[in-house]
């Protein structure tokens, strides 16, 4: 499909909102992050926001590189610290809508402290955490969300540490809007991201996004289409949170409890 035909079919010409001189992008073939970027652009479009009053702030990692491709005020900060910059920007300029893009390593490992304090402070930021269970930018190391048993370059015999449940973490820390979405459910992603941006207070969306190039290849999960199908199966049935029930020694995702997508927690302020 040509770009023109795609624009006609979807009602949005993505090129209007992308910084074309920044292309080509750095994402690998099959990476899920592009699905999230397009969902974000559609979500903003649906909210009819003024693009000159929007700011996009990110940390370091594959997901954080997305902001550079958006034609807006974009701030690519240091590893784990996006929320600190975003907090200062929003407090100094409450007229701006501030969207933060982070990843599982950026947001939950090196930036974990900033994440829980941003949630506690409940400053009006929308934080999208793209969880691909690995450090893609550095070649596929184990992450705080890696399912036990998974092979990574730093867990060649399989990961043994229990992972974080990011949504439960930020809910406990005080976030007033918490949701989970997935690249295998892209239309739901639009509505979750739009709701997160519209929400007044700290909103958080964990987005399951696949890394076929490293995580998928190391764990023999197939290419992008197969990984999306497997991801979709994980969301087919509703169940409780994942962290407590995941266990050491299982192959990746086998026996993992079903994950719930949608809005998990909302407190109107």
């Amino acid at each position, binding site marked *: 499909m040509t770009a023109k035909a795609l624009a006609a079919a979807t009602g949005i010409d993505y090129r209007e909102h992308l910084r074309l001189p920044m292309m080509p992008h750095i994402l690998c073939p099959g990476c899920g992050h592009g699905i999230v970027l397009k969902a974000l652009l559609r979500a903003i479009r649906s909210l009819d926001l003024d693009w000159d009053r929007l700011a996009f702030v990110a940390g370091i990692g594959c997901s954080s590189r997305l902001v550079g491709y958006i034609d807006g005020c974009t701030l690519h900060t240091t590893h784990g610290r996006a929320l600190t*910059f975003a907090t200062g920007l929003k407090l100094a300029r409450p007229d701006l809508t501030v969207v933060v893009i982070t990843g599982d390593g950026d947001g939950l490992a090196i930036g974990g402290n900033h994440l829980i304090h941003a949630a506690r402070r409940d400053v009006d930021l929308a934080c999208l955490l793209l969880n691909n269970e690995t450090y893609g930018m550095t070649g596929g190391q184990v992450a705080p969300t890696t399912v036990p048993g998974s092979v990574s370059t730093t867990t060649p015999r399989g990961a043994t540490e229990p992972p974080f449940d990011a949504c439960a973490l930020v809910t406990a820390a005080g976030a007033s809007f918490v949701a989970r979405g997935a690249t295998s459910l892209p239309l739901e992603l639009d509505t979750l991201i739009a709701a997160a941006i519209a929400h007044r207070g700290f909103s958080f969306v964990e987005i399951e996004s696949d890394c076929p190039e490293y995580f998928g290849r190391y764990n023999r999960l197939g290419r992008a289409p197969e990984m999306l199908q497997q991801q979709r199966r994980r969301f087919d049935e509703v169940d409780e949170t994942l962290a407590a029930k995941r266990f050491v020694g299982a192959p990746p995702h086998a026996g993992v409890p079903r994950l719930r997508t949608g809005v998990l927690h909302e407190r109107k302020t």
Partner: protein
Amino acid sequence: MSQLVQGNEACARAAIASGCRFFAGYPITPSSEIGESMARLLPDVGGVFVQMEDEIASLGAVLGASLGGARALTATSGPGFTLMQEHIGYAALAEIPCVVVDVMRGGPSTGLPTRPSQGDVMQARWGTHGDHPVVALAPYSSAEVFELTSRAFALSERLRVPALVLYDEVIGHLRERVDIADVPLARGERPRPSVGPAAYEAYAPGPDLVPPLADFGRGYRFHVTGLTHDERGKPTDDPAIVGALHRRLQEKVVRARDDVVSVATVALEDAEVAIVAYGVAARAAERAVSDARARGLRAGLFRPRTLWPFPDAELRGLASRVRALVVAEMNLGQLLLEVERVAAGRTHVEPCLRADGTPLTPEDIGTAIGEVIGAAV
């Protein structure tokens, strides 16, 4: 009307008077009164105070606020200054104005939280990785904390560099009479784009090598990154662009050097021996000079109010005409290395160092003066 003003309070009042409207910080002795004062003063002028979860977050928030258009400040001491190095480097490369005050205490590590030191001088210059520009000012009184904090804002905004204000615990907690109205406020604005949003490039330098900076959210859309970038902010590893960027970042401060570098002197005209000292050690040095003069010894004081960039030219001239330079500082020899570099054998350089959590005394410095003059005679 003069009043008793503590150094740290003078810092906060100077920031407000200089248009600072954002403070993010984390409590740490002996700098906490700066944040406490800002928490009290900022709401009355429409500003924002936020206590962050650590010092990394504090400077991150300051940089975010600065990109939004606010003059922004943070303050800390050694351990927090160490954590801030990450974002000092970011501010240097992304060229985001910010002022960082470091009230120096004994280190390394937790060290001596309530005791003075001048141990962060080299960290201020080289604490973050990579080559980078930095401006660091060193006041030695409450009035000068006021003056140089204001000057740090002016320089940081005008040059788009992180500006550091370094003073020790004694200066931070000293209360002395100041007539704030008499202290000059420095003027300096961040350069603003003269072109419309479509033609704006956030890293295209002006004639002074400083690129104009638009605020986020006012019609100019641009990319800010800690990756090495071209004039539009696009990440690049093109050696020609990378090399030119690094040279420009240094050169913009070099070109403004005469406005950045400031030195105060006492009785240097006929001095045989010059003391080089800053901060509270310079107060002891002033007394040591008058004591030496009373004994008939021709001593003088060279007091850098700017530590970085170091006042090479000013000191070089002095080094050519004195018998000795006595470097009096409260560490094991940091600015000493710069003095030795500049003196380059033109004169004898005598260290007078103390790193025990107590200030240098006029007697310490007087002894050093006597020794070098005795040795020369």
